[in-house]
């Protein structure tokens, strides 16, 4: 998505794109905003801001291409550039720091290999949501984009401005972290985790 103005839409075309291609994603956008900020007003502001920007830069949107990915990219950039600066940054985590830390090959899934598919299936929505919400925002984001919103790796790479290889490895690490959280719930809730008693 370049900011280069590729075309000039007529007012009618603009309205058609906005209503037909942008507005249908408001639900996903709001939920993405909420999962980033955990605040209804902040989520509203982010979505509103995103749609205003989308309208302002509508000439750089190519009609018929992936509007949802285009909008998500704007929202994510607004979040990083504006919201994170303004807010008290309760979830501020340095990307590099997290990435380097978890990039080490020592962090493997073995630590949670006791987690069973059956116990995951029995978990409550709140437990799943809380586990996801407890991840650092950058790990949370890739899981939201991939699993909740169904974006492909290629779309995610564009939304996040990172190479596809980084999408893949960040997702892998995010999932390992998520499994650790779920494992914690599983043990607390007394789900069968096959842990040998020592």
């Amino acid at each position: 998505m370049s900011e280069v103005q590729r075309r000039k839409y007529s007012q009618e075309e603009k309205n058609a794109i906005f209503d037909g291609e942008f507005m249908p994603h408001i639900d996903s956008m709001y939920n993405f905003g909420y999962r980033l900020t955990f605040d209804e007003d902040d989520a509203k502001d982010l979505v509103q801001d995103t749609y205003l920007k989308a309208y302002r830069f509508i000439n750089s949107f190519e009609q018929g291409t992936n509007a949802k990915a285009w909008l998500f990219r704007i929202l994510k950039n607004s979040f990083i550039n504006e919201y994170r600066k303004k807010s008290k940054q309760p979830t501020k985590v340095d990307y590099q720091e997290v990435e380097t830390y978890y990039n080490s090959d020592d962090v493997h899934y073995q630590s949670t290999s006791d987690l069973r598919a059956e116990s995951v299936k029995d978990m409550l929505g709140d437990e799943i949501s809380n586990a996801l919400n407890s991840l650092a925002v950058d790990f949370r984001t890739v899981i939201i984009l991939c699993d909740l919103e169904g974006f492909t790796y290629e779309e995610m790479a564009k939304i996040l401005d990172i190479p596809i290889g980084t999408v893949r490895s960040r997702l892998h690490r995010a999932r390992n972290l998520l499994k650790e959280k779920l494992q914690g719930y599983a043990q607390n809730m007394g789900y069968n985790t096959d842990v040998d008693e020592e």
Partner: protein
Amino acid sequence: MKENASGERKTQCSDESKCFELLESILDGEMIDSGKEVLKEKLAKCQPCFEHYHLEQAIRDVLKTKCTKQAVPTELADSIRKQIQDIK
């Protein structure tokens, strides 16, 4: 010798980290053509891969179906349209 007849999976995966990442890509629909064969092979022959695949699948399912969804505030769409009107 036929003790390790087909149907029995090896209990150790020699390259877990790589295999698991691959399985995850397949689950994410990223390896549509080449993925199916790899997947069949791994699930048939490797217990850790088999378990990992099913665990990851279960996690994706619960993420998709159980994560709390926020209802969009009813006034949001209207408020956006109104602001757009103002800048038109």
